[in-house]
């Protein structure tokens, strides 16, 4: 039994941290807020050069052939820096789906391009307001051509390859659709201005079947991605807490550092507790993901729920600790607040994951 990352894994995390500190600081993130496209292409290329896009992809497909524990640590650093790159969409979702269900030809064609950073991916499922349900999907593939509109596609404006949920005969399936003339993309603003978000209208776009039992497949994919996104949330939560602690130590009011007031100190202690609980749940989930254990659905939902709670709490109370300055555009607090609320909905809302967690709980006599 050993409940810690190895020294090699920690070294990798440190390398990623240093790269992002140097190349993806807050000034770089801020350039994206008002720019177009809403991503940092230079950072994306840097991550590709470091081999990080293929962290968990086998070497035969151009990846690094490391594992999911390593990928979790990369995710944590991306989350801490709120890196404006389509990493989750491309790596946790599209590359994962190809690894899980792609034919050999599909894998050989797409994965090396993804690892090289020349193909970016996006998952397109949602068609209307409200929780994603099978009945919500009207997009349909007939004779290999996809018609339908997806209304919120993370990284949809920069994607080259879409993973699309659509009707196919009498069932839902996941399809691969390349960016082409038949794909109409409209960028839209979201709560997180450091993310590319688009509405994507497919009009007879050529679609390749990836996996037929689409709804079940999506749940499998989400369980795996949830662990990785949870590590992004963890990274963001830690950074928000660090910002709040630093400010509480340096900001004086009533003749003393505000961190000496129990009202502030206890708020920070609660942020820490929330973060530590999430971190420990994420560590367990990283192991479950890396070893594909039978309890992955429960471990993933647990990591997801607690990491969502921790990031939302730390980001919102980081603003509170900063007082009025925390509500200014210049201070970075709102960037983390925005990201925390975006990630809370990416892959399904907190209440959806709570329900999934409860469904995955064993009968009590087995606990």
């Amino acid at each position: 039994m050993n409940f810690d990352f190895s020294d090699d894994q920690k070294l990798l995390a440190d390398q990623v941290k240093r790269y992002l500190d140097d190349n993806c600081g807050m000034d770089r993130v801020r350039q994206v807020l008002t720019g177009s496209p809403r991503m940092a292409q230079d950072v994306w290329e840097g991550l590709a050069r470091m081999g990080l896009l293929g962290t968990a992809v086998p070497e035969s497909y151009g990846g690094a052939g490391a594992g999911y524990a390593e990928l979790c640590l990369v995710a944590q650093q991306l989350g801490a820096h709120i890196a404006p790159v389509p990493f989750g969409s491309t790596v946790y979702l599209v590359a994962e789906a190809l690894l899980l269900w792609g034919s050999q030809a599909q894998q050989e064609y797409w994965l090396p391009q993804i690892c090289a950073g020349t193909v970016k991916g996006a998952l397109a499922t949602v068609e209307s307001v409200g929780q994603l349900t099978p009945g919500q999907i009207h997009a349909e593939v007939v004779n290999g051509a996809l018609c339908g509109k997806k209304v919120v596609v993370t990284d949809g404006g920069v994607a080259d390859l879409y993973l699309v949920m659509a009707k196919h005969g009498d069932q839902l399936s996941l399809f691969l659709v390349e960016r082409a003339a038949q794909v109409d993309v409209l960028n839209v603003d979201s709560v997180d201005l450091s993310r590319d978000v688009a509405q994507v209208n497919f009009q007879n776009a050529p679609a390749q079947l990836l996996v037929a039992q689409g709804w079940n497949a999506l749940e499998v994919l989400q369980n795996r991605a949830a662990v990785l996104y949870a590590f992004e949330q963890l990274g963001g939560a830690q950074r928000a807490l660090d910002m709040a602690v630093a400010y509480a130590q340096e900001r004086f009011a009533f003749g003393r550092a505000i961190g000496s007031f129990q009202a502030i100190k206890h708020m920070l202690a609660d942020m820490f507790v929330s973060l530590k609980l999430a971190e420990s749940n994420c560590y367990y989930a990283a192991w479950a993901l890396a070893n594909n254990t039978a309890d992955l659905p429960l471990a993933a939902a647990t990591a997801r729920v607690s990491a969502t709670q921790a990031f939302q709490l730390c980001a919102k109370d980081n603003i509170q600790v900063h007082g009025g300055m925390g509500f200014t555009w210049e201070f970075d607090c709102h960037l983390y607040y925005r990201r925390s609320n975006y990630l809370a909905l990416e892959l399904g809302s907190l209440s959806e994951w709570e329900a999934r967690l409860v469904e995955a709980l064993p009968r009590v006599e087995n606990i």
Partner: protein
Amino acid sequence: MDFTDTPAEAAFREQARDFIAANAPHYLAEHLAKSGFGHTNTGEHDALTEAKKWQRTKAQAGWACLQWPTEFGGRGASPIENVIWSQEEGLYSRLTGTFIIGQGMCAPTLMAFADPSHNTRLLPKLASGEEVWCQLFSEPHGGSDLAGLRTKAEKDGDEWLVNGQKIWTSGAQHSDYGLLITRTDATVAKHKGLTMFFLDMKSPGVRIVPIKQANGNSEFNEVYFENVRIPDDQRVGGVGEGWRVAITTLMNERMAIGGSIATGFPEILEWAQSAQLNGRPALEDPNVKSKLADWYVKAAGLKNNASRQITTLSKGGLPGPENSMGKLVAGNMMQDIAKFALDLQGLSGVLVDPSVAEGAARFQAMLLRSPAVRIEGGTDQILRNIIGERVLGLPEDMRADKGIAFSDIPTSAL
């Protein structure tokens, strides 16, 4: 990262399992399984007698206090072996509550500060459960402000003369020894005038008075000292070093209870999995789902955090102040769970008579006991201070007792 046993760990687990299969008091299993919150159910058998018996059986075969050195009655086992043992002991660990304070808090303090000749004599009896220890720290004027304690010890030849009062001492009535912190100098700053001792609880002048608690039970006691004599060689650590010694005890306290503390989660889950709400399984109710998920991630987070602490310890690290979060999370959670369970029971939730109340009134017992969890062993507020100051490095609050002699510190009217 690896949560599976190494071959050596698997072999150790097998050994533990064999010992338990052959020696555990299986006749108590069905009673222990029905233990309510805060009490050990041993059916028609006496709980203290059974606890001592199981402890002795374990000690004779080297399965008591596994991490202690063998000369003190332990096994010299690793932190991970200790965890494996706890997992295997399972239900029967409910018999060990009586010994937690002695073995988990007093013993590590004695090992760090007491004279080795005392340790070779006292610790094996503590390990085997032959002797029970209590911790005499809190006072009417020194709870959260523990260093404000007033029980006085004055040197008299080779002895110390102790006068004063302790409160909230669990298990004092069946303890053989106690770890006692006293004030030996009121003319210096409050943290500097303290000294630790151990004493025989049967010493003349020691009077134990049970406290009738808000929930009607009496787990805690007041302990009065009237001219109690303690030999100087029962001093634990130097004169005036009592605060440093007490911190050792308290850090071990948070480690001893932080990882394994009851949260109420298994109970509420069991209830939700079997109960009906408005004619449908309670588990289908969105509100129930949301609450259960929230509590589960906290319970799982505590368990996984404890596993991380074990890894830290097995690499030679020490239990850190972040362990303060265990009781902080568990105490609040238990109170919330109890309140929610009663809410779901409607007006029937008011019943506390076990013969008629839902689930033998276990959630009602939890409701009435849980306020104490948020106070005993460090209040929620003190724990948040510890996290804020010792983990996050925030500055101390401004204090009115800094840098002045204890005798000059303002106090409330007596």
